[in-house]
């Protein structure tokens, strides 16, 4: 199996895993809508219907398989969830109502269920987002949002963040080289003031470079709207393919709600 490679190694594109698959080929806005809808069906599922979550997980594994995104790409990225896991783990200790004994600890039943709900729904949501990001270049996602008529200003802010992460990380790299080539090594607390100072300089430098980039964009006729360089034609078949995901999700969710009455 070929190892995942990225085209361009752009900072903003680090999450994208270049493959040729059905999922990669779907237009960004179609995937975005399908993912958000799928997450909604997961959220509306009552936490005590464990089988439903097992099915959701199987579906996501299926999507990952179709997109040929291996577990070793997905699992490390799930670490972003860790802070929420802490929160979920605390719930059983602070919940009210009837309790159960687990390993000599008295835990709230409602808290356990709520904690589990947060954990599993959060995890499924995170995995869905990871899959979207791994199969859609960040720039396409932004253009997709534009096509979905998300307010232009929001899309603009997001796209500038994307571009400036690049500017800033470049600048950071150059300053690091400049520091180190003059004999600086970051050792211990005594180097902190220097790092802090370069942090300030980094801000100014990135800001000024950002401004020069902006001037260069204006010179080429930029009017506040990034041109759509590729004309994407979204077909009914694309929507049909993508929406089959939340459709199945909805069936599961409704069945779970009905079963849990």
């Amino acid at each position, binding site marked *: 199996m070929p190892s995942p490679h990225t*085209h*361009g190694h752009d900072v903003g*594109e680090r999450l994208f895993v270049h493959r040729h698959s059905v999922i990669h080929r779907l237009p960004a806005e179609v995937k975005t809508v399908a993912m958000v809808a799928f997450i909604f069906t997961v959220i509306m599922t009552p936490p005590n219907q464990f089988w439903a979550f097992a099915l959701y997980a199987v579906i996501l594994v299926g999507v990952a398989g179709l997109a040929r995104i291996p577990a070793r790409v997905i699992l490390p990225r799930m670490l972003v969830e860790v802070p929420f896991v802490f929160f979920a783990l605390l719930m059983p200790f602070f919940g009210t109502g009837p309790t159960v004994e687990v390993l000599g600890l008295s835990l709230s039943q409602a808290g356990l269920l709520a904690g589990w709900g947060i954990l599993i729904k959060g995890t499924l949501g995170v995995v869905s987002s990871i899959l979207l990001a791994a199969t859609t270049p960040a720039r396409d996602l932004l253009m997709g949002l534009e096509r979905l008529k998300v307010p232009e200003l929001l899309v603009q802010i997001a796209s500038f963040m994307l571009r400036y992460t690049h500017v800033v990380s470049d600048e950071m790299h150059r300053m690091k080289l400049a520091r180190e080539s003059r004999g600086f090594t970051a050792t211990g607390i005594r180097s902190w003031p220097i790092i802090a100072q370069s942090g300030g300089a980094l801000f100014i430098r990135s800001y000024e470079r950002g401004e*020069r980039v902006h*001037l*260069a964009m204006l*010179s080429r*006729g*930029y009017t506040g709207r990034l041109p759509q*360089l590729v004309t994407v034609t979204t077909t009914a078949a694309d929507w049909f393919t993508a929406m089959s995901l939340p459709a199945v999700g909805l069936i599961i969710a409704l069945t779970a709600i009905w079963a849990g009455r």
Partner: protein
Amino acid sequence: MTPSLRIAGLAFAYPDGYQALFGVNLEIAKGERVALLGPNGAGKTTLVLHMNGLLSGGVGTVEVAGLTVEKQNFPEIRRRVGVVFQDPDDQLFMPTVRDDVAFGPANMGLTGSDLAARVDEALEQVAMSEYADRPPHHLSFGQRRRVAVATVLAMHPEILVLDEPSSNLDPASRRELADILRGLDITLFMVTHDLPYALELCPRSVVLSEGVVVADGPTRDILLNDELMRANRLELPFGFDPRNVPA
């Protein structure tokens, strides 16, 4: 025939109060190649930024092929004036060379195969076609400068303005860029500290000093005018004699 560029009585002070230009007058005919010489801080970049309205608010007028540089004309002005900035990293910001070259013409409303043709043509002109799908920040400095030139050529400008095009290029890249620029059928305005380069490419030179034009004439005459050269901190490289360069 209307000149490609006409600047009349242009004076400008930066918002912090520093006056950089004191009444600049300049006219460049269509198809001319003109070098702008002058010491550091003379106001050369400031002047360039006025040509497409990136700086404004002083007195005087700038016209490009008869069209006044003012807010309601900006889209057309920016199509007509192609500015290549000193640092190609400021100019190139899209994920691939192709997208970057397409940025300008796409802003002008070109799409589909027209857009693709423009991009191919511009990359062809600077001999960078085979790099179309590479990310710009992975190219060498000289290659990035060439792509930067392509990004504005793709807009089919009336006048190409270059801010220190030969800086940081190795001798071979410098010569290749000269060949490319000489081959273009376009009005050229080039800011440079590289006097042999000015002599090689531009029959006419303008010297800017402390915000005013102090000389305007054949490049060879200017480079041979010792008094003028010394007064404006212009120095020929060691061993270079314009007299030995065939006209």
